[in-house]
């Protein structure tokens, strides 16, 4: 078939080139320089002509070349192009292609267009599929952790199907979206499977991101899905399987004995203020209330609730090219069970990418992605109880089933609440399903040789359904009644970009760019219902007999834009680029709909200058600079309006409740970004990229705290600025490269510093559990604001906080100790954002063995370990299990106990209130991933009719090193409904994951 194709190609070429009267064949073979393996699919063309073809499976090519001397240009993605001088009629030419370690000639997709790496004028990082796929996950964010300088990735939850939080160059916004904009195959948004990803491009400065205008404040991540690389049909199959275990970090709970001994502290003979305290532990009372037999009742609730869980990932793809058609078809199936009982997630994804070449002028691309997922989620309270129930309670009955317990149960149940989460889980269901369709239509019409019309369009629709069901037999509030709720969400939208792209060359000058328009519209519609009074065994809304409730609403968003870009370069040495985007968004008041976002960037590719050509040390040197403005408007619709919400009722009549304060002048948050960077390539082995940046986000879209006495918590305002300054270093180095052994190192680090400015007054945001953070001029984002914990009063055992005495000018003049929490001074005690973070990754190859070790580090942030409020509670809640006290910790035992670190359970008023007692250092170093693989020798693979087979094992989240006390320090940094940034709660623990992966190419 390949031969047939070649024949067709050749015929076509002949047909196209009637001007040449005489041609002679040239034949040869292309092999890889490193292993001398034949390379199929390599493009071979004759310089200065349109004659060309591709190598076959054996790396062989054959071209008809006009008589006389000619130059063959041999190209393949990821390899350095090579020119070979030949004479027509020459046969058996051997061409060796060397891998392009620095990939300077690779084409990088940078949004609406693509550029060669060496033409880039802005800070852009490309991560190829090779570097991503060592981690098997359902989420690309998880795969990117530690691989891009300036990209902060936080896996804040280990729940099945959970996705990582991604922040680029620090956090530059407070209440607007902080997550980078994802662009899939040139179109904003979109759905894809990680297996289908060819490469990821991260656009970091305004030089590149300003083209996305009002959506690009948090950076842009461009996902390019796979396409055919070669003529013949190629198949790839991947099978991964393994298991996961819950990683509780340093949250070691007490076992039965430890808790038993700890509780003796509750029996100290001490009544505050009483004259006759003996301060001795009253063992008689203790044994009366806590029989010795408790020591033998040791049940590990978290171990019973979190089990190791299997993961599977199957992937099959086919790709190929014909004269008229390029295609890629991929299918993936991903399934994981959650470590928490009765949780799971599975997803199936089908992708078809095809480009049809109607004529030399017209290409039409049709990409379709279908995915369906379903899973079982969990109830927070079930996780909560599986940490806090006491080891003295047996979760199981005599038959080994989770025991039923409620307020009427006659047997002794020690734990605070008469709830067995294992029984509840068995009798409840929190499942969800989703279906997602994306269809992309791309039209590329070459109007003239310098002008192209490019249209990219996507229609997308998704439907999601979530159900919560509690059986009438479950203990708790729905016992005897049962409960069900359902929520159905439909999202659909259209995106359309129409561009005219131009590309001129005039001697040493070239100008390219585009102008066009874009339109985006999306709609969300949801509806749901709930009810109680269900017959046992049935779980649909129709059988609910009472307390039926319905809900539903919809929202709409429109963005329309003009976009343009011009790029100029002189002699491939001096590059200048400018762009302008004009956006209109439905999120603002009519007078504030439109905003403009310009950028300019330039680069000098010094290594293309005479004085550096053929320099043996420096093979690449580029200096870049950019300035631009991006914006954010992603705060949801209608934030500028004063609103009454009509979603409630009183006495069965509609009620309208004050919901939002009007803010008619609300407008774009804009981020002025300056970036300077340098790219250096040394010895053709080491690439060093350094970028420094300063990003001023002005007019922050902020929910400004109001005095509660106005009846509103916050008001949307454009208030204050965040200035992020930072430096980013990325190094990748081929330390050793021989035929048999190769060692590569990637290192990234990003120092980021943020400062707040221009706030009209201090703003204190107080979230759930009354944890506050302050926004103050000169201060940091997400700065915790709470009393300082000073330990324990040695004489009384009472908790001690710091009280600062201020003089009349407001200056602190003295610091005192107080045991009255209400007197303690609320002060700034550290930010939830890290000072620096990065990754250090090494890969080794010995012959066919590969080993890759990825690590990630994060330094200088504070995490509030809210779990400790329950698990280090000084007897406030004596029937919750407790965390093992850290080394050196000691409960106060009597007057003069200067060693005590934990207050007396008899005198611990307010000790669990917010203070730095539970605010911990969130720095950590984690061995993110170790991947070991073996590629079967080609000869062996061929025997089983394969082109290549590799087998690998990977371990994820191998170890985390941290001083944090609690679950692992990776904690949400998103301020949203349920969380304050940097506050760690009873989360679904992250996973350790062990996988076996087999890859087949055929």
């Amino acid at each position, binding site marked *: 078939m390949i031969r047939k194709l070649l024949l067709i190609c050749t015929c076509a070429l002949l047909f196209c080139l009637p001007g040449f009267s005489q041609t002679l064949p040239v034949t040869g073979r292309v092999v890889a320089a490193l292993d001398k393996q034949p390379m199929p699919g390599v493009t071979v063309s004759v310089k200065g002509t349109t004659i060309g073809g591709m190598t076959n499976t054996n790396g062989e090519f054959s071209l008809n070349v006009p008589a006389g001397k000619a130059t063959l240009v041999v190209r393949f993605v990821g390899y350095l192009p090579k020119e070979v001088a030949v004479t027509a009629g020459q046969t058996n030419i051997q061409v060796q292609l060397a891998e392009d370690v620095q990939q300077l000639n690779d084409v990088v997709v940078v949004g609406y267009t693509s550029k060669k790496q060496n033409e880039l004028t802005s800070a852009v990082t490309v991560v190829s599929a090779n570097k991503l796929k060592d981690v098997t996950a359902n989420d690309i964010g998880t795969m990117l952790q530690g691989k891009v300088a300036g990209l902060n990735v936080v896996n804040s939850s280990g729940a099945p199907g959970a996705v990582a939080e991604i922040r680029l160059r620090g956090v530059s916004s407070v209440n607007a979206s902080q997550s980078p904009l994802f662009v899939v195959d040139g179109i904003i948004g979109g759905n894809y499977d990680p297996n289908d990803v060819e490469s990821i491009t991260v656009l970091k400065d305004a030089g590149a991101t300003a083209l996305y205008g009002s959506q690009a404040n948090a950076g842009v991540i461009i996902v390019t899905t796979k396409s055919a690389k070669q003529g013949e049909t190629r198949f790839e199959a991947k099978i991964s399987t393994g298991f996961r275990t819950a990683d509780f970090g340093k949250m070691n709970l007490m076992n039965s004995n430890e808790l038993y001994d700890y509780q003796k502290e509750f029996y100290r003979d001490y009544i505050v203020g009483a004259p006759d305290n003996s301060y001795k532990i009253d063992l008689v009372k203790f044994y009366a209330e806590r029989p010795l037999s408790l020591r033998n009742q040791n049940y590990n609730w978290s171990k019973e609730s979190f089990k190791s869980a299997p993961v599977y990932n199957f992937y099959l793809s086919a790709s190929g090219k014909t004269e008229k058609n390029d295609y890629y078809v991929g299918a993936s199936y991903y399934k994981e069970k959650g470590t928490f009982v009765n949780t799971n997630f599975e997803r199936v994804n089908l992708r078809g990418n095809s480009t049809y070449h109607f004529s030399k002028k017209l290409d039409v691309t049709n990409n379709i992605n279908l995915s369906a997922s379903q899973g079982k989620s969990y109830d927070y309270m079930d996780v909560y109880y599986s940490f806090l129930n006491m080891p003295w309670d047996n979760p199981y009955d005599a038959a080994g089933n989770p025991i039923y317990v409620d307020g009427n149960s006659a047997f002794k149940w020690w734990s605070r609440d008469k709830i067995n989460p294992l029984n509840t889980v068995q009798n409840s269901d929190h499942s969800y399903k989703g279906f997602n369709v994306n269809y992309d239509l791309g039209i590329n019409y070459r109007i003239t040789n310098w002008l192209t019309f490019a249209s990219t369009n996507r229609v997308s629709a998704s439907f999601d359904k979530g159900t919560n069901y509690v059986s009438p037999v479950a203990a708790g*509030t729905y016992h005897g009644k049962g409960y069900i709720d359902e929520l159905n969400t439909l999202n659909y939208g259209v995106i359309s970009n129409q561009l005219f792209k131009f590309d001129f060359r005039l001697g040493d000058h070239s100008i390219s760019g585009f102008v066009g328009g874009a339109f985006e519209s999306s709609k969300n519609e949801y509806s749901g219902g709930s009810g109680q009074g269900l017959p046992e065994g049935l779980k649909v809304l129709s059988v609910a007999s009472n307390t039926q409730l319905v809900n539903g609403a919809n929202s709409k968003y429109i963005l329309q834009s003009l976009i343009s870009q011009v790029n100029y370069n002189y002699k491939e040495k001096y590059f200048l680029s400018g762009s302008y985007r004009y956006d209109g968004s439905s999120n603002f008041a009519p007078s504030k709909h439109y905003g403009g976002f310009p950028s300019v960037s330039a680069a000098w590719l010094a290594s293309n200058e005479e004085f550096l050509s053929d320099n043996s040390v420096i093979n690449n040197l580029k200096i870049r600079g950019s300035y631009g403005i991006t914006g954010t408007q992603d705060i949801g619709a209608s934030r500028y309006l004063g609103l009454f919400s009509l979603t409630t009722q009183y006495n069965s009549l509609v009620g309208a409740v004050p919901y939002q304060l009007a803010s008619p002048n609300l407008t774009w948050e804009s981020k002025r970004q300056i970036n300077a960077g340098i790219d250096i390539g040394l010895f053709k082995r080491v690439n060093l990229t350094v970028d420094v940046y300063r990003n001023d986000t002005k007019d922050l879209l902020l929910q400004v705290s109001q005095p509660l006495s106005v009846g509103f918590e916050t008001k949307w305002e454009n208030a204050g600025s965040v200035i992020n300054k930072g430096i980013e270093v990325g190094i990748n180095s081929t330390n050793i490269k021989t035929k048999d052994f190769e060692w590569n190192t990637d290192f990234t680090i990003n120092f980021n510093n943020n400062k707040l400015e221009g706030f009209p007054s201090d703003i204190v945001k107080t979230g759930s559990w009354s944890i506050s953070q302050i926004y103050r001029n000169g201060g940091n984002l997400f700065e915790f604001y709470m009393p300082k914990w000073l330990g324990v009063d040695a004489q009384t055992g009472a908790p001690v906080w710091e009280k600062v005495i201020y003089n009349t000018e407001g200056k602190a003049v003295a610091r005192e100790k107080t045991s009255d929490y209400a007197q303690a001074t609320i002060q700034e005690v550290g930010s939830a954002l890290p000072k620096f973070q990065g990754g250090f990754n090494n890969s080794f190859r010995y012959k066919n063995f590969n080993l890759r070790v990825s690590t990630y580090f994060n330094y200088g942030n504070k995490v509030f370990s809210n779990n400790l409020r329950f698990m280090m509670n000084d007897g406030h809640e004596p029937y919750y299990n407790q965390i093992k006290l850290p080394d050196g910790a000691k409960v106060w035992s009597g007057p003069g106990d200067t060693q005590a670190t934990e207050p007396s359970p008899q005198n611990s008023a307010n000790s669990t209130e917010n203070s730095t007692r539970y605010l911990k250092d969130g720095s950590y170093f984690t061995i993110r991933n170790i991947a070991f693989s073996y590629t079967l020798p080609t000869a062996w693979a061929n025997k089983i009719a394969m082109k290549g087979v590799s087998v690998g094992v990977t371990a994820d989240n191998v170890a985390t090193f941290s001083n944090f006390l609690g679950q692992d320090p990776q904690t949400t940094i998103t301020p949203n409904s349920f969380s304050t940034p940097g506050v760690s709660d009873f989360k679904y623990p992250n996973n350790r994951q062990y996988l076996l992966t087999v890859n087949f190419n055929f």
Partner: protein
Amino acid sequence: MKKRIFTIIALVVFAASSCKNLDVNPSDAISTGTIVTTSDGLTNALNGAYALFKDHIEFNGLVDQNNMYLRQFYHLSDFASDDIVCGQVTTDPLYYSFSLGHSPSQGNTRYYWYISYKIITGVNTVIDAVEKSGKTDAKTNQLLGECYFLRAFCHFNLVRLFGKPYSVDPNAPGIILRTNLTDDAKKARSTVKEVYDSVIADSEKAATLMTQPRGVQYASQEAAWSLLARVNLYKEDNAKAIEWSNKVINSGKFTLATKATYPALFANATTASETIFCVAFTTVDDYGKFGSIASMIYSDGNSGWGEEYASSSLRAAMAPHPEDVRWSYIVPAKDGSGNVQKKNGIEMYYISKFSFQGGSPNLSSPIMFRIAELYLIRAEAEAKTGAAPAALDDVDEIRKNRGLEGSLYNKVLPAGKTALDVVLDEKRIEMAFEGHRTYDVFRNKRTLNKAYWGYHLAGLKETDIDLSKTPTGYPNLTVPYTNPRTIYYIPIDEVLSNPLATQNP
């Protein structure tokens, strides 16, 4: 052909991306500017104000089932009283009402403060719109009157919790008065007296405006009179308290429940003969274990937490009269052999005043004003103005209907008691768990005696409990009215965002 298809596609694509109207309105909300332009909108806004007493509104980005105006209304007052005992230490801030370990950042006072002012803002929006419209028809006036009533009611409930009693110090800092939409967001606390003056002015205005009653689920003229009677009693303007009580009692619209009907009064608040104003909960407002008022004080084993009980102190006060029908709201949790169960050593006497509407253990329509209170307000004012026989008659009026027709005072003071003692003793039993006790004790400059076993005693262990003895040696066994913790701290959010608001000592 291909060209034609391409042309069509290109045209469609262009059409799709042509200019669109960017004005988008929310689907489940109406702008403040629009809602006040229709009488329907104003009615909805007023209904919304009532709904806020029972709804769980998002606070700090979270809908927390603990957060409900009425839930906190009862917790913050009754859990601090000697009527309810704590059977379980908890990290829920409701515990601080027992332990007096108050903090400006406790979530329940923060929410209560917030929602009070949200109700006030809602009605202020309606008042502003109606007064600008110039409409004065009876229907509009009723609506306007309800708004004034709710504003007065909320301001008064706030000043009771966050300001010292009027009788103790009328010039002490009260709360922030919000009586218009134009005041600066940053505003100082008014004095207790200023707040009372505003509450009385609003209530009097409300009473004159409301002439078209909408049912006991809504404010009415009599509700405004009842509030005036209560406020004036607290203010110790006893003549006014008697005057307003008389107006309500003599309206003839409300009668005391009888011995036979009293046990079903609270489960049927909307139709009960005593109800002047209640907050209506319907079956969809049956919040279950996490969000209901009843769940902390009652459980059928699954329906609630059931961790707080009728105190031994209250039960001792009722003990001489087992025939008193008011026992019907105190439900001992008994084990198989008929003994009262204990939780952590505390006897479990559940409270059922907020249960059994439609048979649900967690549903009731809490009564804000009922006729029995007006008799007791009048009795107290009479007692204070030297009219002891009249006071005792009013008390007897209640007792006759509670199964105590054999134990009436008949104008004779029992030995060693003042008329005020008798009235307050009766009120304690009659209005138990309805959010009166602490105010009645402290505004009368009395001391709350909490010398009974319960987890309000700091560091108490189950084995310390000896029910045959009275606990000694613990702090806070008694709470005099001078204790600064008889009121709560101003919530941290207010103090931090509004520097003019001073904190309580």
